[in-house]
């Protein structure tokens, strides 16, 4: 494990920038998927508006966070697809490029291409969310944390599959677990009180709860804030580090 960490930073991410550009070129052709995700989110927000307009701020923030989560999850599909169908691991990992450069290049490339619709939702949310500079900064940091968590878990999971079709079931499981079942699009206060601490340990719902609290849509105790923020920081750090080490390790069994 120590030797896995021993690469100098300049070498550790070699190839990241170039592979990021590759991934941007590849993903940019998926404009239809981007447009569709935008429309789906738009329709959901319209439903919320019709059902209960007071939930709109929470739903907009949830939409931003969950979009970041789904962007991270695209890494699961993309990494598995490139490894299984295109043998891109063999091509890229047997080269001076580093495994973590490959993983992060792919993840950031997807982020750059798909972040457009999220920015649109963010701009529209100005209409309903009482932003302050502090809330904007918090939103940025939490969205980044959710994306890092999702992209890292996505990359790690992608290495376990030998068949792309097997991934679909797990993708929907993650989608439902992290975005539908636990409170991301709706306030934490509507979630069963006994299970709230569980929700606060899941990065998307923890980030959503912190944002909801910052705009006064949910009230969190100090302990709950500490649990959500501390848990999120620790989980994201550990999973990102784990994904980098895992990328290095699995580059030997591609």
């Amino acid at each position, binding site marked *: 494990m120590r030797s896995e960490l021993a*690469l100098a930073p300049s070498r550790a991410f070699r190839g990241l920038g170039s592979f990021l550009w590759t991934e941007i070129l590849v993903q940019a052709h998926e404009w239809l998927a981007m447009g569709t995700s935008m429309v789906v989110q738009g329709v959901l927000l319209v439903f919320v508006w019709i059902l209960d307009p007071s939930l709109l701020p929470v739903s907009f923030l949830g939409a931003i966070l969950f979009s970041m989560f789904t962007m991270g999850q695209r890494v699961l599909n993309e990494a598995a697809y490139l490894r299984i169908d*295109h043998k*891109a691991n063999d*091509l890229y990992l047997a*080269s001076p490029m580093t495994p973590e450069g490959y993983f992060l*290049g792919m993840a950031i490339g997807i982020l750059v291409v798909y972040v457009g619709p999220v920015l649109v939702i963010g701009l529209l949310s100005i209409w309903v969310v009482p932003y302050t500079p502090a809330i904007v900064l918090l939103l940025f940091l939490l969205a980044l944390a959710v994306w890092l968590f999702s992209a890292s878990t996505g990359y790690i999971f992608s290495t376990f599959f030998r068949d792309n079709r097997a991934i679909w079931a797990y993708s929907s499981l993650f989608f439902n677990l992290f975005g539908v079942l636990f409170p991301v699009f709706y306030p934490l206060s509507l979630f069963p009180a006994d299970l709230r601490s569980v929700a606060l340990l899941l990065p998307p719902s923890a980030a959503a709860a912190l944002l909801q609290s910052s705009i006064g849509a949910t009230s969190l105790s100090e302990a709950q804030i500490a649990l959500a923020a501390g848990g999120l920081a620790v989980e994201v750090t550990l999973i990102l580090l784990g994904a980098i080490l895992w990328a290095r390790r699995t580059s*030997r069994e591609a």
Partner: protein
Amino acid sequence: MTGEALWSDRLRKVYETRGAPPVEALRGVSLEVHRGERVALLGRNGAGKTTFLKIASTLLRPTSGRIEIFGEDVDRRPDRVRPYIAVVPQEGKPFFHLTPREQVYTYLRARGLARETARARTESAIEQMGLESVADRLAITLSGGQRQRTMVATVIATEAPLLFLDEPSIGMDPFARRDVWDSLRGLTRKGSTLLLTTHYLDEAEVLSDRLYIVEGGRVLVQGTAEELKRSVGGTLKVTLQGPGIVADEFQSFGACVSDGSALTVIVDPPRLAELLQIAVQRKLTAGVGPVTLEEAFLRVVGRSINAE
């Protein structure tokens, strides 16, 4: 860079799969590839060729044994080996939403080449592979052969000191295959070393300086194509067709292989006239041709299968 381009000693790989018996893919493979050489690994499907290539290209860890590339231990220091190598993976495909030009260029950039160098090498590789007319079309619209040419272009453009090519010309038409051969010969003239696997024995014969025949995870024989062909026991093959041919009649001339309707006899030139005289007397149809690598391969591998 020091040492041989590639050197392996008693390399073993055992695949452990939960719930299934372990599979010993390599059983002590020792081989060497000298600098500037073109070497082919031949073998049936599942013989261990791809496993060897994956270990050599740092993508798989051996169970035991040792392997070095330019004097660097592949298993212990893959990071030192990777700048020296490039791989055309078996069944690899270019990114479907990149054009061949983008694919080659972005790969070179990911390997750390400067923009200008990457651009120049991209154009050269595209031209060598005859991809000019489709260079700006998305790979998803290309034929299988064109995609494979894109993969080869991607890797030859690196001009890496050691190239691994796992069935590089699969799916290509005869013209494209010859383009690939020319490019690979050009690379070795520039100093690169090649290790390839192929099921096209004509390709192996034309392209490689030396060959290793692998079966069941072991190297059966190694040598030049000529040496392997000589090991068959003659340099000519005579194919006889007609009623009532019995292999026993011709076994004194050399090895005989019957495929039902025809009998192939391997013979040395001094005894050809004698054999043809018998064929004429028996009113058999006879065809004469040189022994090919295919005969040598079938004989070497067939003998090994029979022995097991």
